[in-house]
């Protein structure tokens, strides 16, 4: 077994045995899919309701991906630093980048597991999706960008905030606040203009809008997130966040002083 799979196996076991991580990443989005599907569809025309549920399901899948990257990843990094594992690893012939790949792969696995479960529950409560094979592939690409941006934020939080609880709360706080102000929990058209601008710039909400546009239909989003300029912005900012997080982690993440 290589160092990547060693780091992966350890991280995925820890994540799957951490009740708080499972609650926020899997149970919480599922609860909101169920509540949202029965609470926010009352006055809509009957034929539109399955797509509104589809839109809610996608938003909660994106939230699950966000929480995994923004909270579970920094918890894993800060936790290992706080409990002395980092000092132990630094004394061993371990390549930091291999530890990083193993760790981030575990978070991606949990993200995908959470997203799949949210999708299953969404469909079970009546969510329906549109989309051709190409559109589904594009949607998966945007989901990947959500993972990149969230992991980037998670790496920054886990590297800069040395305290375990501080790292977790910062990650959860960023996820919840940015979700609320970027239209992840509320329709874009209900947001005040400054937040609509933020919603288009923030790569996670713009990626979420793109996925909804592709899989629940253009009627579910009040703007076109698939213009070339908007797509370029989403891709650039998602990868920039991941790049910034990776650089920061590789420079400062393995330092004790």
């Amino acid at each position, binding site marked *: *077994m*290589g160092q990547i799979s060693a780091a992966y196996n*350890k991280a995925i*076991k820890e994540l799957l*045995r951490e009740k708080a991580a499972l609650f926020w990443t899997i149970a919480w989005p599922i609860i909101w899919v169920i509540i949202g599907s029965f609470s926010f569809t009352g006055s809509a025309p009957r034929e539109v309701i399955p797509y509104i549920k589809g839109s809610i399901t996608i938003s909660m899948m994106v939230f699950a991906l966000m929480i995994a990257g923004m909270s579970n990843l920094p918890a894993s990094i800060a936790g290992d630093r706080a*409990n*002395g594992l980092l000092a132990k690893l*630094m*004394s*061993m012939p371990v390549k930091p980048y291999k530890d990083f790949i193993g760790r981030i792969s575990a978070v991606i696995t949990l993200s995908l597991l959470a997203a799949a479960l949210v999708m299953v529950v969404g469909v079970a409560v009546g969510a329906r999706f549109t989309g051709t094979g190409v559109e589904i592939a594009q949607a998966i690409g945007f989901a990947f960008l959500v993972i990149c941006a969230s992991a980037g934020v998670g790496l920054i939080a886990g590297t800069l905030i040395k305290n375990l609880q501080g790292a977790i709360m910062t990650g959860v706080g960023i996820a919840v606040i940015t979700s609320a102000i970027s239209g992840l929990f509320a329709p874009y058209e209900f947001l005040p203009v400054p937040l609509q601008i933020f919603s288009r710039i923030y790569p996670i909400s713009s990626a979420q809008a793109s996925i909804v546009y592709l899989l629940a239909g253009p009627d579910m989003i009040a703007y076109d997130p698939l213009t070339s300029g908007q797509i370029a912005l989403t891709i650039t900012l998602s990868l920039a966040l991941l790049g910034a997080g990776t650089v920061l982690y590789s420079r400062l993440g393995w330092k004790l002083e």
Partner: protein
Amino acid sequence: MFAIHVENLVKTYGNRRVLDGVNLDVTEGEFYALMGPNGSGKTTLASIIASVRRQDSGVVEVYGSKPAQAKEFMGYVPQENFSSPKLSGRENLVYFASLLGYSRNQANQIVAEMLKNVGLSEEADKRVAKYSGGMRKRLEVATAIFPGIKVLILDEPTTGLDPAARRTFFGMVQEHMEKKTSIILITHIGSDAELASKVGLIDNGRMIAEGTPDELKRKHAVEDVITVETAAKSDSVISVLKGFSINGRVAESEIGYKIYSRNGDRVLADVVRSLDQAGHKVMRIEMARPTLEDVFFRLTEKNLQEATG
């Protein structure tokens, strides 16, 4: 060539000089105890040798190489608990074995053997969260003794261990000494350091004394302490005892008097006889050998246990 060679090592945190020109040599197969209070710099020194931190200046070599190039054959147990409480003891060890490049089968075999060596076979599949402090420490020591390890650095590994676990631990140390593994034990417990072949006393980032436990006690003239309890306390008892104590020093204790001698075991019988001849009944007499903590106190005027908190 020394297994570990440290020369004029300096390390500063902010304005505080944590290591101030430390020199230290450990030969192959030597068991070296580094003893000092909290904040004396011993953990920083261990972490620099283990390649976890970098020095500001000075030389550190492990078998002639820089520590970063000696990681393959160096085992380090930091002071803090680092095993994952969410994994079992076996899973933790398999994780470290995998990081060292063992295949899954090799890792499983070696780990089973190591669990047996540290007495954790029966608890191997329990999560570490359910381990006692001593069990967890034994598991963590096991992460540092994979085959091929030539240098072992153990930072306060016996803190919190019960007497049985300490015996098991020092049994393991003995086995590794027989395999010519060089061991540095960081400790503030004198009785642990007594078992080492060489002891370094460190205070305020400076090595203040070094030698075998006996050499240190002899060189720094620490006396045996004889406590005498007589049927009654009196000036006459004190005047008899003065003749047996270094510089005539007699201290009053709760139960009687304390005198100090470099040959306590020889003086003991004479003290009883003289007191008897002077008409004083000896109710109890006992002698305490000097410890390395006493040596440390003599050199620094600091009580090691109190300084450590």
